[in-house]
């Protein structure tokens, strides 16, 4: 037990636990000290000085994010001098910032803008020097605009500390300091995994996704195209937040209805193809378990993880499941099976995916995922982009009446829904693998040890006497910790699920920005989004992928059997080593 100490905040006495910073103590006592570079999941930067407070006996203001409390400490948080100093600090940041709020992508959802408002910045005293850099538009997923960067360093820290990708660093010095990949390389030639977490934590628009909304709006007007859209499980669990709904409210049916209003002819569910992935992946796993192929088998549906694997862990390529992601499986089916069903030329199909993910934009552009020379998915937009399109396209998302998915690619099991939460793919795969292997349905289908936000989760499944050891990691940093264990002890696990983003897809790089009352990657928000998916699962009558009647029909009419010739042609792929090779330091090297 930490010892209790007494402190005074703004002349009021409080008894608190020792061993925390002034900001942490103040947060718990109902004070909100303004902040900018601070993030509770990341190391303390102390760069922005927005969170300064006065401490009796100290000559200078101290940064409350970094300064520890002490017994008897007298802290002032909102004096006239502090308010002026903080306002000046934010004003000086703005002096070097482009004056283009009203044309900026983050207008109205920008932390810097909000902070300036809260500081009461109503008058500008100075005109500072502006930065003048070219935007890096090279990546399929992440756009870097150093002109808007305020050097808070959150992106550098999340990239190195949480994701361990270490693609970003500070280069040059003084006013010329810039956040950039090694050798000033464009993103497309760097070790960036396209996870988009830099976008999630950026307080301004220095990082944004590559925007495809205008292109999509134009294509939606094209009468020669059959416009088909799919959306990921995690989109429904989070899109409401962009319209002011509380996190954790599923907006599945509303999203279907809104997509029809935007002009789509068919709205299908990525969860259907999550079920299909499970059929293929569970079958592949059982084959490997019988000795045909390498163990542990590692999941392949997270596109950021796939790019990371090719650059950081090429020694594990043979362990990766050959299954395409649910999004790419759906794309492949749309341009073959479904094109046949509606008697349309595949090239007249516009295949669109709404994803919680920025890396899916990169995945859609992978040449090896093309189907008969066409991209399986033509356009990927993020949850954020769709939310904007709904607002811009004049759809009343708040009052809209929900609608159902189209058939035959819209029905899904509960197993498909939980794909979006860390551990969900494993849980769904076990539900199906168990029955395929033993011939009996698994009774305890909610596998609690695989749920929740613990970095690495382990489970033990009894398949008719055979003990199957499974592990789950979310976020590329946790994945690294797990894979280091696997490299040392390759026989330890049989089956591993890895998701590139914290919390799984629900914490994806394309999800709505944190609102007024939350912070990026807030654990509470992630838990609520996951719960929304677990609730969908619980309310389904079909909870196991192999019981989905439309999946059975698809195999009967078109695919044949899991791992059959048609499946191999359309639903499986391969991976290869990519350069530059990624390097993961054993010790923390970033500041």
């Amino acid at each position, binding site marked *: 037990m930490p010892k209790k100490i007494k402190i005074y905040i703004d002349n009021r006495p409080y008894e608190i636990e020792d061993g925390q910073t002034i900001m942490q103590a103040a947060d718990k006592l109902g004070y909100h000290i303004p902040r900018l570079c601070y993030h509770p999941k990341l190391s303390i930067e102390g760069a922005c000085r927005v969170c300064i407070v006065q401490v009796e006996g100290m000559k200078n203001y101290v940064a409350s994010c970094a300064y520890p409390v002490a017994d008897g400490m007298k802290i002032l948080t909102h004096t006239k001098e502090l308010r002026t100093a903080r306002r000046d600090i934010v004003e000086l940041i703005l002096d070097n910032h482009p004056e283009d709020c009203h044309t900026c992508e983050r207008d109205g959802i920008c932390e810097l803008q909000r902070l300036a408002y809260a500081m009461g910045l109503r008058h500008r005293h100075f005109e500072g020097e502006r930065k003048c850099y070219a935007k890096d538009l090279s990546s399929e997923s992440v756009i870097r605009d150093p002109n808007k960067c305020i050097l808070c360093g959150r992106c550098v820290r999340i990239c*190195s500390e949480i994701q361990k990708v*270490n*693609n*970003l*660093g*500070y*280069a*040059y*010095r003084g006013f010329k300091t810039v956040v*950039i*990949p*090694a*050798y*000033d390389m464009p993103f497309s030639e760097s*070790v960036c995994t396209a996870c988009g977490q830099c976008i999630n934590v950026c307080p301004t628009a220095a990082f944004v996704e590559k925007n495809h909304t205008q292109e999509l709006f134009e294509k939606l007007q094209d009468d020669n195209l059959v416009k088909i859209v799919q959306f990921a499980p995690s989109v429904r669990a989070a899109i409401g937040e962009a319209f002011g709904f509380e996190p954790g409210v599923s907006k599945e049916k509303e999203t279907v209805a809104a997509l029809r209003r935007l002009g789509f002819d068919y709205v299908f569910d990525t969860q259907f193809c999550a079920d299909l992935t499970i059929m293929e992946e569970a079958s592949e796993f059982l084959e490997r378990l019988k000795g045909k192929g390498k163990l542990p088998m590692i999941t392949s549906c997270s596109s950021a993880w796939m790019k990371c694997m090719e650059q950081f862990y090429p020694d594990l390529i043979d362990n990766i499941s050959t299954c395409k992601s649910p999004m790419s499986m759906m794309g492949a089916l749309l341009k073959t099976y479904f094109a046949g069903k509606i008697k349309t030329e595949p090239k007249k199909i516009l295949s669109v995916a709404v994803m919680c993910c920025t890396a899916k934009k990169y995945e859609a552009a992978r040449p090896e995922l093309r189907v008969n020379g066409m991209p399986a998915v033509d356009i990927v937009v993020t949850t954020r982009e769709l939310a904007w399109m709904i607002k811009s396209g004049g759809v009343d998302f708040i009052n809209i009446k929900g609608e159902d998915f189209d058939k035959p690619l819209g029905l899904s099991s509960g197993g498909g829904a939980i794909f979006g939460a860390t551990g969900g793919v494993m849980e769904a795969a076990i539900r199906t693998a168990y029955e395929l292997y033993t011939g009996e349905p698994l009774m305890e289908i909610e596998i609690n040890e695989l749920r929740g936000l613990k970095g690495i989760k382990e489970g033990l499944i009894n398949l008719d006497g055979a003990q199957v050891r499974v592990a789950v990691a979310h976020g590329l940093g946790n994945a690294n910790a797990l894979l280091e264990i696997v490299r040392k002890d390759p026989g330890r696990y049989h089956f591993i699920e890895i998701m590139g983003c914290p919390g799984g897809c629900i914490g994806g790089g394309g999800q709505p920005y944190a609102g007024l009352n939350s912070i990026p990657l807030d654990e509470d928000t992630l838990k609520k989004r996951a719960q929304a998916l677990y609730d969908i699962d619980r309310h389904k009558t079909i909870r196991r992928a192999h019981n989905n009647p439309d999946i059975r029909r698809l195999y009967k009419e078109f695919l044949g059997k899991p791992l059959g010739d048609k499946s191999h042609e359309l639903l499986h792929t391969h991976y290869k080593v990519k350069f*530059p*090779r*990624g*390097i*993961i*330091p*054993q*010790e923390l*090297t*970033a500041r």
Partner: protein
Amino acid sequence: MSCSAKAQDSKLSELNRFMDALKGLSRSESNLIAILHKVQELYGYLDRDAMDEVAATMNIPTAHIWGVATFYHYFKLKKPGKHVIAICLGTACYIKGAGEILEKLKEELKIDIGGMTSDGLFSLEEARCLGACGLAPVMMIDGKIYGSLTPKKVSEILQGYRKRSSGE
């Protein structure tokens, strides 16, 4: 194997010997600056392949190495020319017309400060006093001082280097 490939090889093995001695130490990445000094000593600048080698051997992400390499002015990021010209822009030289000399150099070489001629023969740097103020304005080429410069003299000096180079 060509001569230059052999020379590259021996540089790389010397760099690796240097790093091997540091690898076992705790927090070995704290030796990064010393290693980068070694790279510059061997290559004349921070060669990108050499930095990649440092990254792989010392297990330091390249983005972090790039941060250190760009922070310190001492580190050169571009390959220098065969002959490095340092033009003094210190007070004494400046008063004696270093500006005019610099303009002449830029015109003759068709490069700016920090650049290298397209044939790789010269690169141009600025210096802040070479300790030869009595000879102002001065420039230094590969460690040799040339004083009391005039634009005409600059032309002749460069011509001399060019001639010697084409005669080699």
